[in-house]
């Protein structure tokens, strides 16, 4: 196997990323019948998965592969494009291609019968390409390109049903909010480039990279590096839907559910966390605190919102935001490995949650189509008792929910505990108000357990609420095979075994061992490693029990709908309204003002100048006509008068002429008489 040089490995990596692009190009450029491309794209993505698995085993915990080509030269700076494979990238490579493959397979059934299916496959291909490219590339500028490409393909996918008004609105919103984040990314790139004159990630952020040296020595403009860190974090907040740029994600639920699952699990939102991990050395302690506190706030806020939502996909969307908040906390507290670990475990169980929810929605939509009834098929208040009709979906979803709540023996337990414990340890070492962060994370994880089991209980327990309302028979079955098996595979990954042999200790996880660890080893008063899991789990189980009591036993949860707090949460803390009013309306108003200004003032000025010109020319015309021309006319008329006058002398009469002659001679004599000198 020595023939596999670095170059060959990076070629393989490039191929891994390019295969989905080939899917995209093949489907869009080769004409054919509508709905083609399913097998083609599944084949390509499976090859990608195989290749990335191969790369994973070649590179994980071994040497880093870094290959570059010259891309272009500006001035004296050469820009390279290359592939940088380290533990992080190969892990992401496998994760992305695996989840994508599963979603591809799931989609064959879920999207069956859509008239524009070929476009769906093409867009999925582009999306996977962007995401796979993002994780392997080594140049910040190209990372940025893929970063935006991810945003673009998500725009296409969210707005896939382009005749739906809400879908197009949501896709637009997603793109523009992400654009805002991109500005942060661009600013970051500008700062990094102007400081270090290179955008090579390995050179910048490698172990002995420029950033590490600078941050350590403190020579370089520290303030600008802090700003760069904040700017990159802004980019991550947009992609990973963190406060204050989280509002696009719930709206993005307008896309097909399979797409939501892909976006939420492994690809788009993960890109933000991945970016932070990739450029980790640039963040100085100030930025890290910001990251951690934004993460904690987002996690808490999204969890509270999730408590009050009724749309099954929206609950999951806010759950995603909340979980991403956890990853951000991990990043902020220096638990870089734990953040990625949670990213991976979350990818599986969130993907599963969405796909299972998709199965439920799929069936509900069928039910609606058959009964020709009119109800919201995504509203959990219309569901209930589905565990009998869809047992497999139920079981897999329970597993995923347990993982989300962080119950032992699941993958989520490991990663969430890793984050909680490390954040407590970090907070101990910091002191001050940041101590709130771990506690809020703790609180959030309790809320998580409650809202996800509220969803489960409302959907799967009790009686089907629409029974008898439209049709006596409940004609809801298990999802089709392709969807079912995908869910089973994902369910396996929700268990602890995929990540660690020890069900209760995250330290044993192979992912954490392959990634950098938190630097602080604080001798704490408490043994967090024992206390935290116990407290979290006891409380979580209590919360689940409470949910059970409210939503299954009594069938009558306390009615809070008139409570202002409930309203506040239900309306998602009014962020959308505030943004709409402040930014959207503000910008459109500013735009129309600007146009008014342009039309009235700038163009008005031009027209004014033109009018002044016209008036001036009128004046000069008047002058010309009456003064200049008048003078000429006066001269002319004088000549005419004189002529007319002289004409009188020429009478033609001899006697007059004679008289004149006589007078002239007489005059001559008189002059001669009086002035003899002449």
């Amino acid at each position: 196997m020595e023939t596999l040089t670095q170059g060959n490995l990076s070629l393989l990596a490039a191929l891994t990323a390019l295969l989905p692009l080939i899917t995209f190009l093949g489907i869009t450029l080769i004409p054919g019948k509508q709905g083609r491309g399913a097998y083609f794209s599944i084949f390509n993505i499976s090859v990608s998965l195989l290749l990335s698995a191969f790369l994973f085993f070649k590179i994980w915990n071994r040497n880093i592969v870094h290959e570059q080509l010259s891309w272009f030269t500006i001035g004296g700076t050469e820009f390279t494009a290359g592939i940088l494979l380290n533990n992080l990238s190969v892990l992401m490579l496998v994760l992305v291609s695996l989840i994508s493959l599963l979603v591809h397979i799931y989609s064959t059934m879920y999207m069956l019968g859509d008239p524009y299916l070929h476009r769906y496959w093409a867009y999925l291909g582009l999306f996977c390409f962007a995401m796979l490219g993002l994780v392997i590339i080594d140049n910040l500028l190209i990372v940025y390109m893929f970063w935006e490409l991810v945003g673009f393909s998500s725009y296409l996918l969210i707005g896939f049903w382009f005749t739906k008004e809400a879908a197009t609105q949501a896709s637009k919103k997603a793109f523009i909010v992400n654009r805002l984040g991109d500005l942060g990314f661009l600013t970051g790139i500008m700062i990094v480039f102007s400081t270090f004159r290179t955008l090579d990630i390995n050179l910048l952020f490698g172990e002995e990279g420029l950033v590490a040296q600078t941050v350590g020595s403190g020579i370089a403009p520290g303030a600008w590096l802090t700003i760069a860190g904040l700017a990159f974090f802004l980019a991550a907040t947009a992609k990973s839907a963190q406060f204050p740029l989280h509002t696009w994600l719930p709206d993005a639920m307008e896309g097909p559910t399979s797409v939501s699952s892909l976006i939420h699990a492994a690809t788009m939102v993960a890109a933000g966390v991945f970016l932070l991990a990739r450029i980790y050395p640039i963040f100085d302690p100030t930025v890290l605190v910001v990251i951690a506190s934004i993460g904690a706030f987002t996690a808490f806020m999204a969890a509270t919102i999730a408590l009050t939502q009724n749309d099954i996909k929206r609950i999951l969307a806010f759950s995603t935001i909340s979980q991403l908040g956890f990853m951000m906390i991990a990043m902020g507290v220096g638990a870089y490995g734990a953040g990625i670990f949670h990213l991976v475990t979350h990818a599986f169980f969130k993907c599963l949650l969405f796909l299972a929810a998709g199965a439920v929605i799929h069936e509900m939509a069928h039910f609606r189509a058959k009964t020709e009834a009119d109800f919201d098929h995504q509203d959990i208040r219309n569901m209930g008792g589905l565990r009998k009709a869809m047992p497999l979906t139920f079981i897999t979803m329970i597993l995923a929910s347990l993982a989300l709540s962080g119950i032992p023996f699941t993958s989520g337990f490991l990663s969430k505990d890793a984050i909680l414990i490390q954040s407590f340890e970090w907070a101990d070492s910091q002191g001050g108000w940041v101590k709130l962060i771990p506690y809020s994370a703790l609180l959030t994880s309790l809320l998580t357990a409650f809202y996800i089991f509220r969803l489960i209980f409302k959907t799967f327990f009790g009686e089907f609420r629409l029974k008898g309302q439209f049709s006596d028979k409940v004609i809801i079955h298990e999802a089709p095979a392709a969807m079912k098996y995908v869910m089973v595979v994902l369910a396996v990954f929700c268990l602890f075994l995929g990540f660690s042999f020890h069900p209760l200790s995250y330290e044993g996880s192979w992912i954490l061992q392959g990634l950098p660890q938190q630097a602080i080893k604080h001798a704490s008063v408490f043994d967090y490693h024992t206390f935290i899991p116990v407290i979290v789990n006891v409380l979580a189980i209590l919360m689940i029990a409470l949910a059970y009591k409210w939503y299954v036993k009594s069938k009558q949860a306390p009615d809070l709908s008139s409570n202002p707090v409930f309203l506040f949460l239900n309306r998602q803390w009014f962020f959308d309204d505030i943004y709409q009013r402040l930014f959207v309306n503000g910008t459109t108003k500013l735009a129309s003002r600007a146009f008014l200004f342009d039309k009235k003032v700038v163009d008005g000025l031009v027209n004014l100048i033109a009018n002044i010109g016209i008036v001036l020319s009128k004046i000069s015309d008047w002058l010309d006509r009456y003064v200049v021309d008048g003078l000429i006319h006066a001269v002319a008329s004088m000549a005419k008068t004189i002529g007319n006058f002289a004409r009188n002398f020429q009478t033609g009469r001899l006697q007059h002429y004679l008289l004149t002659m006589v007078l002239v001679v007489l005059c001559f004599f008189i002059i001669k008489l009086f002035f003899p000198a002449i």
Partner: protein
Amino acid sequence: MIPLAHFMLVSAILFCIGLYAVLAKKNAIMILIGIEFMLNAAILNFVAFSKHDKIALGGQVFALFAIVLAAATVAVTLAIILNVYKYYRTIDPTKIDQLRD
């Protein structure tokens, strides 16, 4: 002895009468008569001045010459007047103003 000034006075009066006739009369014949008056005023002057040229009598010779000349001009002028009359059917000089254009 009549002093020279008297001759000249008569001659001047004659000339003025002639001039008046030439300028004011509306009949070509009368203008011709005016011209004759002026001619004769000049002849009178010649004769009067000839007193100072006792040897050659140049003044009197000139006077005779002028009289002959006057007779010739009258003949020519009368012929012109006749032709004018034939052409214009009038001998009023104020009516004959074709020189104007």
